[in-house]
């Protein structure tokens, strides 16, 4: 067992964990942060994407012990003061989700993408989200949503 301290969605946790415990299982099974789903076992689908110290990672490819001392943001911590993040709003507005299973990961990957490129082209969004699979939407509306959020965020944070 290893002792870790980690902040998840603004709350500090200290826990003893098996060294092999995956971050995503720590979030889901130990902390009850079930907003982050699991879609595969080979780090291909991106469903489990969270932000680790502000950058997107696939939480199924990170050990809980590697998150020691880090700040984790999951989909449950993306809204602030009850107000949805512009990316959440844009996904809703553009109908960028159907079953919604890929959505938490898509939203967090998009937030990270927009940090690097606040005005991405369609192609940049498609390339940037390559690691996140969606079986329902065919991606058109996801691309629209990310670009809409980008526009929104440029307006609100000049």
């Amino acid at each position, binding site marked *: 067992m290893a002792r870790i301290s980690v902040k998840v969605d603004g709350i500090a946790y200290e826990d003893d964990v098996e060294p092999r415990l995956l971050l995503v299982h720590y979030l889901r099974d130990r902390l009850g*942060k079930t907003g982050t*789903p699991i879609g595969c076992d080979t780090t291909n689908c991106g469903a489990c994407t969270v932000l680790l110290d502000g950058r997107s990672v696939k939480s199924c490819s990170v050990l809980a012990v590697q998150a020691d001392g880090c700040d984790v943001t999951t989909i449950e911590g993306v809204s602030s003061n009850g107000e949805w993040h512009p990316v959440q709003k844009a996904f809703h507005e553009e109908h960028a989700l159907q079953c*919604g299973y890929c*959505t938490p990961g898509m939203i967090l990957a998009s937030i990270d993408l927009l940090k690097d490129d606040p005005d991405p082209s*369609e192609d940049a969004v498609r390339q940037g989200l390559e690691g996140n699979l969606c079986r*329902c939407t065919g991606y058109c509306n996801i691309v629209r949503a990310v670009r809409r959020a980008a526009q929104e965020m440029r307006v609100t944070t000049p």
Partner: protein
Amino acid sequence: MTEQLDAGAVAQQIREHDALDAPGGGSEVGRARRRKEDARLVTGRTQWTDNIQLPGMLHVAFLRSPMAHARITRVDTSAARTRRGVVGVFSGQDFAGEQGSLPCAWPVTADTVIPEHPPMAVTTVRYVGEAVACVVAVDRYAAADALEAIEIDYEPLEPVLDMTEALAEGGPKVHEAGNESFTWKFAGGDIEAAFHEAPVVIDRTYVQQRLIPSAMEPRAVVAQTDGDHFTLHSSTQIPHVLRVMLALTTGIPEHKLRVIAPDVGGGFGSKLQVTAEEVLCLLITRRLGKPVKWTESRSEGNMTVHHGRDQLQNIRVAADADGRIRGVQVKLLADMGAYLMLVTPGVPLLGAFMYNGVYKMDAYDFTCTGVFTNKMPTDAYRGAGRPEATYAIERLMDELAVEIGVDPMEIRRRNWIQHSEFPYTTICGLTYDSGNYEAATDRALALFGYDKLRAEQSDRRERHDPVQLGIGISTYTEMCGLAPSRVLGSLSYGAGGWEHADVRVLPTGKVEVVTGTSPHGQGHETAWSQIVADSLGVPFEDVAVLHGDTATSHKGMDTYGSRSLVVGGIAVVHACDKVKEKARQVAAHLMEASPDDVEFSEGRFRVRGTGTSQTIQEIALATFAAHNLPDGFEPRLDASATFDPENFSFPHGTHLCAVEVDTETGATAIRSYVAVDDVGNVINPLIVEGQVHGGIAQGIAQALFEEAVYDSDGNLLTTTMADYLVPSAADLPNFTTDRTETPATTNPLGVKGVGEAGTIASTPAVVNAIVDALRPHGVHDVRMPCTPERVWRTLRTGGGEPA
């Protein structure tokens, strides 16, 4: 019209979207309502089955067969039992007396061979991945760890992996009864006369590769019991069907079994199943008295969630010299896999009535043989039978055009059912109630810039450009809205095709709709609210839709086959009609008028010719209080309706795809994709557009990327998402979509269903485009998926007969 394709500006797209949202004259139906479902999904407050944690819950892990075909000679679970955290270890033998056989509800012929299908193998394994034992432990890691301590000895048997070889005399057998499950025939008209001295006969064989449905949420099951009653949560499309089937399989009485489909992360047919794991989790919880959970890994799922397609299609067409079709003959081999699951044998039959497509002909002849192999069973996958049929006929229409020497669009126009000919009874005996192929096609051609692209194509051909342009057409129709119960009965299906709805009016005038459909991404909570809001004149926000729990929704046939709106939505309409009729009685009584003088619109009952009125909310409260109701009036406005459709519905459309194929590398890039679909009237254009987008993506995936590959020993090679290529955003283009609206005449909403249309249409559009690009090189077929390697090899070997 190519500006449309280039209109990339986000602002433009947003305007287009928001224009959809403009309410049309106070009406909800037709409005691009943003979905009610989204709030929990974008904030992570979802209820996936795997989220469920119950006190004392145990975790199940399955040991799966590494052999495609073998006899189990020894099982030793003793070492596994001693592992940390292990509560129980079971093999097939431990459940042999109670596990029954997984059901097949569709014996398509009287002599269909339906082998015993034990949820956990007892004596013989017949595909890689079949469950042979399981561990029940305190957490998922402990359960997985202990699997390695189970010892099983196998005596290998020769696997059957190829359908044609399977049917040859004297080879190995999957089951004692042999490798043929059934042969089903269907015919209309005189096929011999059609082919006799026909000026043109074309004969092709197409391979429908095996696909893995790949819903993003892996399956998960939670089972619990209080010793008498059982509750099963499952990531399923069919909680109602599942409850009946599990009751029949396990012997748990139906009234003591509650099945819940909580939030379900996609299905596409793959969760239209009664699975071994669902049965076994119930048996384990019954045995141990503890709640248990099983969640599959993706690699496990790729092996053991039923696969789709896998057919070998021989299709022949006879035509006149001008290209008019005389007859079509289809001979199909359909790979059942190792067992028949819920509707395995019925899948090819759903395609049997669709090989004629949108075309007129004098004769049709269809034969399908279901073949057992040592592979995962196949079953419904988005479109189920109809994508295969559409692929074959649309590919063949292109071949016919080449043979006759006309443009492929022209050959279609010469043969399709004219708008003026509807309703039209096809050679298969189906009556297509409505359609307008000309309108959808004309709009698609304009959006696509067809003539300009053809001009560019000839230019590139003349220049011997290494990158060739190809244009693919698919003018498809499909039969959906499954299904008229009588027709299902005539096809030997084990159940009906009706759907049920309850509409409850609460004291405050809010409305609860209980639907028998079971959405898993389709947005029924939103669309049904729109329908009810219009019908009862209540605000959209005042409607809640309940579904997916047999305790709240006792009656339903669930969601598949693009049936939810066309069958389930109509049940909602009928239930609302009954509510209004009751409310009219109360309103008339309260306003001291004759019910005949009371009219209803926009939520208000008015006495004709007076200013007197009452809102439906006032009537709701008065009915709740029940102080002053008509004599003998039962104090409730609630009503139920069960709707059984009289006919299928027939969406149609024209999909056009332009590809650039690099003849030096074999790489294909989709340059533009235009889809004009006619799904009848539309409840929510945003949801319809989303369904079309997703459908197109899955159809393109079959054309270009996906294939479940088994090696010569029967091992599945594509167990991960690194090997089985579900396309990402980077792999797909933007789609230009539009609609024509020719209302269905068979239901009061005029709707046709949209869940499968995109998938059915897009695969042939893409492959037709690739073949079109390569025709100057002598290519007339490329086997799917048309990977760069396949295209490259086909170019070098010429032709394109299936390997």
